[in-house]
């Protein structure tokens, strides 16, 4: 085994920042703070880390739909691109409040009542609120620990029938067990477009599930689905052991016995083994 020289190429600050951002953005659900700690150690440059963090954390938080508690613990707010009013301000329509957050620390620092122009019109709010109530009921039954919200992303100022508008339902469930080396997250986003005087509803759903198990190894699941039926995950898993794994490695050879290593000893190896296994030539 020969030694090889690796060129000592000095990276520019911009390159280092991009690398730092890459690690942060690609952290598994619930693990960005751990990744941040290791990253700071490897990077050894607080200034570049801070710049990278300022850019990466908001993107990560929104794509993972993280949930932050109000400072007075009276409720939570989800961080998504659908309810973002300003880069640090997020609307919680259920309580008609706006939360200010610190993305890098992943905390909600203050809450204030929402202004009228930040909220949907009463006509839209009627739809939003009714849907929200149904979703809350559903999430309460289907998810042990799910958080949900309904936002109006288009047409929030529509006053009456005759115009199109769009609502988005967001459901987020997270389970973090770092002590058990296991973390996971489920994110569902449903876009509902009310079109053409409500003659038509267009519903699109996107479900993303991630799981990470890292005791003595590193195994990650990511599953995406863009249809309504969620029973498919069970199907994927029940197929796995019997079918997909066999395509990679069988449990035992076709002979159903362990491989005959001992026969290599005295006789011409290949010939003997082939005879025993019945492989013709």
């Amino acid at each position, binding site marked *: 085994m020969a030694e090889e020289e690796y060129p000592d190429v000095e990276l520019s600050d911009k390159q280092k920042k991009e690398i730092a951002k890459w690690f942060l953005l690609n952290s598994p659900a619930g693990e960005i703070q751990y990744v941040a700690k290791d990253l700071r150690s490897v990077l050894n440059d607080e200034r570049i880390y801070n710049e990278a963090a300022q850019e990466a954390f908001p993107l990560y938080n929104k794509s993972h739909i993280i949930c932050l508690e109000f400072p007075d613990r009276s409720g939570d707010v989800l961080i998504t691109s659908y309810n973002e009013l300003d880069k640090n301000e997020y609307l919680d329509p259920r309580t008609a409040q706006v939360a200010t957050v610190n993305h890098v620390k992943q905390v909600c620092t203050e809450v204030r009542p929402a202004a009228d122009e930040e909220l949907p019109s009463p006509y839209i709010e009627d739809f939003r609120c009714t849907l929200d109530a149904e979703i809350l009921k559903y999430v309460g039954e289907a998810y042990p620990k799910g958080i949900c919200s309904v936002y109006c992303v288009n047409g929030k100022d529509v006053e009456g029938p005759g115009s199109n508008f769009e609502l988005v339902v967001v459901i987020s469930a997270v389970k973090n067990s770092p002590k058990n080396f296991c973390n996971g997250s489920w994110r569902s986003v449903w876009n509902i477009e009310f079109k053409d005087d409500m003659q038509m509803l267009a519903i699109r759903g996107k479900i993303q599930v991630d799981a990470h198990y890292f005791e003595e190894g*590193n195994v990650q699941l990511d599953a995406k689905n863009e249809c309504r039926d969620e029973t498919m995950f069970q199907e994927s898993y029940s197929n796995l052991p019997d079918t997909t794994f066999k395509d990679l490695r069988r449990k035992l050879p076709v002979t159903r016995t362990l491989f005959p290593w001992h026969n290599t000893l005295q006789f011409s190896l290949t010939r003997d083994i082939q005879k025993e296994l019945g492989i013709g030539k």
Partner: protein
Amino acid sequence: MEAAMGLIRRMHPKKSQTALSALLSLLPHHSSDLLSQVDQPLQVLCDVDCGKEFILCEYNRDADSYRSPWSNKYHPPLEDALYPSSELRKLEIEANEVFAIYCDQYYEGGISSVYLWEDDYKEGFIACFLIKKDGSKTGQGRRGYLQEGAWDAIHVIEVGPEEEGAAHYCLTSTVMLSLTTNGESSGTFSLSGSIRRQMNMDLAIADGHLCNMGRMIEEMEGKLRNSLDQVYFGKTKEMVCTLRPPAEVVMRLPNS
């Protein structure tokens, strides 16, 4: 360095090559440690003399060339290259032939390679057994369930000197696994992972080194396969079910 390994463990296994390049550029002085400790999917070259493929790794590399276990030649050709002794080479040839059959039996295809070399620091030798299987339906996946499927196994055995008819074997095995199914109705489902285990044994050499090493590898691969199947995939499935238990009734949003 510990922080670097921590980062690798958290990044998605599919992105491990990008993560490794990133770390190599941030920590150039740790490059040899990083390269030896971070698992990378195996690459393959074709031996021009016999048309058979062989697997590339650090153990058959000298400068930028790789030695084929079939012809014992470096690709691309290299002057003053390193070769195993003629005695080890004999054992290496035997090992490659037998391991190829083992590979066929368990993997129904796949590519295997075995490399042997003398240990610089002590008596005895080191053997590296490698397997690469592409189980996707466009590769060698017979049942056609996998859009993408890869199993890469690396087994490195340090064999100690013979003492009173026995020798000490230290096996370090790494399996890297990646599979993706893509159903019409079920969307994309992707699982990737890697695990590494070690096994130490003192065995009589009456049956020969190859037999001892082979049996250890077979046992280890069986354990790793079961681990991956039951423990790891079981755990991630458990996580999904904890997040959202399977519903008896699918709720449908009302249509107007």
